[in-house]
């Protein structure tokens, strides 16, 4: 079976990268890339109560998910989803661990509910009313690849469109010393079994054991700094818009090769 899908929607948010339209030329090296702190928009999809309850990571995931769905002209409730993240909500985790280190620990119920790795997927489902299957993955630095592979396998096997949301943000100290991630980065894709009028490209993936593609600086530093930014070689080729093959970082002894065939 060919593990393939069409990219019908795309989104990116990271240091100096504020959405696909603004970022495309920088990723294609048509304009210089300048890393600036990631700006996360307020979570327009959530109610005021939920907005108070959610941190940066949920805002990041929801922002890119919404951008990719809008770009695809799709209806969020009609899409399955794969969320993938190495860290989940690092700030929330740090605050829980601080409270649990007290002699008589007391933690907030909201903080605990938000500590699950699938918090962003839960808020997305509630915000969009999507009851379709959704899964949430982690593969450390290979989390983006694990998500891309799962999403493409679902498209290939079940022939339904799917939303892939990959996101990671920084831990505060002291965790940041153990897991340095300087800033938030996320990428999202709507992947479909059939070509649509606005489709960017057809992707086909195979497992291999080749080393992952490296980028020129300063994008290479960004790629290595955040697990979700391991998507950058794919984003670069989609931005350039020419037929290409890239290899993405997955696991020790296993990489993912992606053949990219533009639709234009």
């Amino acid at each position, binding site marked *: *079976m060919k593990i393939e899908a069409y990219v019908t929607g795309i989104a990116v948010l990271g240091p100096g990268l504020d959405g696909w339209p603004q970022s495309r030329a920088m990723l294609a090296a048509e304009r210089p890339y300048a890393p600036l702190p990631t700006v996360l928009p307020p979570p327009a999809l959530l109610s005021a109560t939920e907005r108070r309850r959610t941190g940066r990571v949920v805002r990041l995931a929801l922002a890119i998910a919404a951008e990719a769905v809008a770009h695809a002209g799709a209806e969020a409730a009609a899409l399955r989803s794969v969320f993938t993240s190495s860290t989940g909500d690092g700030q929330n985790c740090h605050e829980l661990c601080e409270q649990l280190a007290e002699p008589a620990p007391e933690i*907030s119920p909201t903080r605990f*509910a938000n*500590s699950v790795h699938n918090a962003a997927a*839960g808020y997305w489902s509630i915000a969009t009313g999507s*009851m379709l299957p959704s899964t949430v993955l982690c593969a*450390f630095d290979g989390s983006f690849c694990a998500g891309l592979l*799962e999403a493409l396998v679902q498209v290939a096997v079940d022939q339904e469109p799917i939303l892939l949301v990959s996101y990671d943000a920084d831990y505060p100290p*002291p965790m940041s010393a153990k897991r340095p991630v300087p800033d938030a980065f996320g990428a999202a894709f709507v992947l479909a079994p059939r070509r649509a009028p606005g489709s960017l490209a057809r992707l086909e993936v195979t497992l291999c054991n080749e080393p992952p593609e490296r980028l020129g600086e300063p994008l290479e530093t960004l790629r290595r700094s955040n697990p979700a930014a391991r998507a950058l070689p794919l984003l670069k080729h989609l931005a350039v818009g020419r037929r290409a093959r890239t290899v993405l970082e997955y696991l020790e002894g296993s990489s993912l090769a992606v053949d990219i065939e533009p639709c234009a």
Partner: protein
Amino acid sequence: MIPLVLSKFTATSCIGRGTAQTLAALLAERSGLAPCRFETVRLDTHVGEVPDVDAQRLPPEFLRYECRNNRLAEIGLEQDGFAEAVEEAARRVGRARLGVFLGTSTAGILQTELAYRARDPVTGALPEAFDYAATHNTFSVTDYVRRRLRLDGPAVVVSCACASSAKVFAAARRMIDAGLIDAALVGGVDSLCLTTLYGFHSLQLCAIGPCRPFDVARDGISIGEAAAFALLERPSNRTASDDVLLLGVGESNDAYHMSAPHPEGRGARLAMEAALLDAGLEPDAIDYINLHGTGTPSNDRSESQAVTSVFGPSTPCSSTKGATGHALGAAGGLEAVISALALQHSLMPGGVNTEHVDETLTAHYIRHNRSAALARVLTNSFGFGGTNCSVILGRAG
């Protein structure tokens, strides 16, 4: 779907290490729950603690992976000849054609919780020995198992709270269907930690005594821990009539609330219907339902409504969490193994601890073991974030 065979399976929880002890406890209607004496936690609740987990040592080359969750994984791998069965399969299909798909909610976060008590008083730094990637990170358990068994195939953790290790069956099956792998190690490992004990306590969801699913006086969950594994492959001429098949999986979302189920079990119903559709079965083909049955007032009410809306009021069902506690991210895997044992041993396990079934719950809840030939069993797992998964297992012959 095309059925797959569980060519080997094992489970370790507070009711026993391996399938023989687990089955003996189920047959004796024995609960493994006891008052919480875990670590420094002195909450008035019962837990399902696996004895002597921290006496387990990982092989010396895995020193950096030492944490309660990976120790529990190691204990699990050593039961029932499971690691040997994986090795045999890896040699047969190739190490790159065997994937690893495990569910966990908290992985080795206990290690981080302990590290936060030992921060440098001046700088606030965590202890030198704390290893983030090998213990804390959600992926650490799959990373450990993959390296320990020297597998080179695709590998991932599914972390969807308490549905995690049910959903791994769907992920693994799709990858086998797609032809990327020939066999999959699936399952779940979750271990006791402060986050979940104090967290569920903060939500007032912990029972004081042992949990009593579907009881009129049920007052919450008892947190447990488990390591459960299964090896999934396509059926072959080695498949015997008492082997257990994966027949269908259904997944859904409630789209309702982060930490409370939909009151009428809307998402739960969709998951069960999707599993039946996937298996090509009508509701009356299911002989027994192993419920999510956490023992919280809201879960049991909503699940009972969902079960009745799909199956009517007569399909026997029970929750085995009165025996094992709620193993959270490992619950789906543990209860799949219990369902497989039920199929092989013609056993509908009764819901222990439950004394007076809540008569307003319409599902047909059984409190004591029944002996009956079972052809197909459905098991439910639901989690925070409104994530739901139902798995259907059946006898090969």
